[in-house]
């Protein structure tokens, strides 16, 4: 299992959890970003994600290294789904193993902020009214 992956297949938490587990870790944090049924109150039918996959995986791995250096976490893995996602499906999955929980909580919040800033992945909202829109682009 690749620690940093952009994939069209359904994300699964358990293999990622196994990747970051370690006998010296007292804390495991899993974060899932999930396709929800609205954005700013407007009804969403489904989502579509597009990536620059080679660069996105590089950027995810770089963020993982930075998080280890900055927060002192043990292991980290990040998978991002692309393609069409139905409501309730997981778009991004972050797993962190850490000796202590404080570092893991700080790292996961930072990682999600960074992913939304620098990783070349784009979300298209397919609204319930049939129209569509790339988020953040007009």
């Amino acid at each position, binding site marked *: 299992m690749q620690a940093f992956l952009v994939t069209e297949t359904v994300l699964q938490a358990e293999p990622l959890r196994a990747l970051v587990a370690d006998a010296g870790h007292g804390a495991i944090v899993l974060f899932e*970003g999930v396709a929800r049924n609205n954005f700013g109150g407007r009804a969403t039918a489904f989502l579509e*994600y*597009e*990536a*620059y996959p*080679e*660069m*996105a995986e*590089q950027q995810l791995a770089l963020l993982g290294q930075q998080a280890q250096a900055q927060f002192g976490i043990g292991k980290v893995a990040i998978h*991002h789904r692309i393609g069409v996602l139905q409501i309730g499906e997981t*778009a*991004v999955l972050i797993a962190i193993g850490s000796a202590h929980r404080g570092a893991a909580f700080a790292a996961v919040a930072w990682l*999600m902020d960074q*992913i*939304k*800033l*620098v*990783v*070349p*992945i*784009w*979300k*298209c909202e397919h609204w319930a009214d049939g129209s569509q829109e*790339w*988020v*953040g*682009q007009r």
Partner: protein
Amino acid sequence: MIITIRFFAGLREALNQSSLSLELAENATVGTVLQRLAELYPNLPLTGLAYAINRQYVTLEATLKPNDELALIPPVSGG
């Protein structure tokens, strides 16, 4: 020299293609490419972009080498 440009999301849709090969003079910069694209496609939304050469973020001033892959990166919205 020839480089490849890659387009994503709204930019890909506006252009109706995901990549393009372009013939450029030596020492052309990212800025040079943007000017050329603006001439070729006057309606293309080229504001608010970030740039990457061979998968590394660069600035407008970065110079291109033969066979480089230049990506025009609209505001990302992953996660």
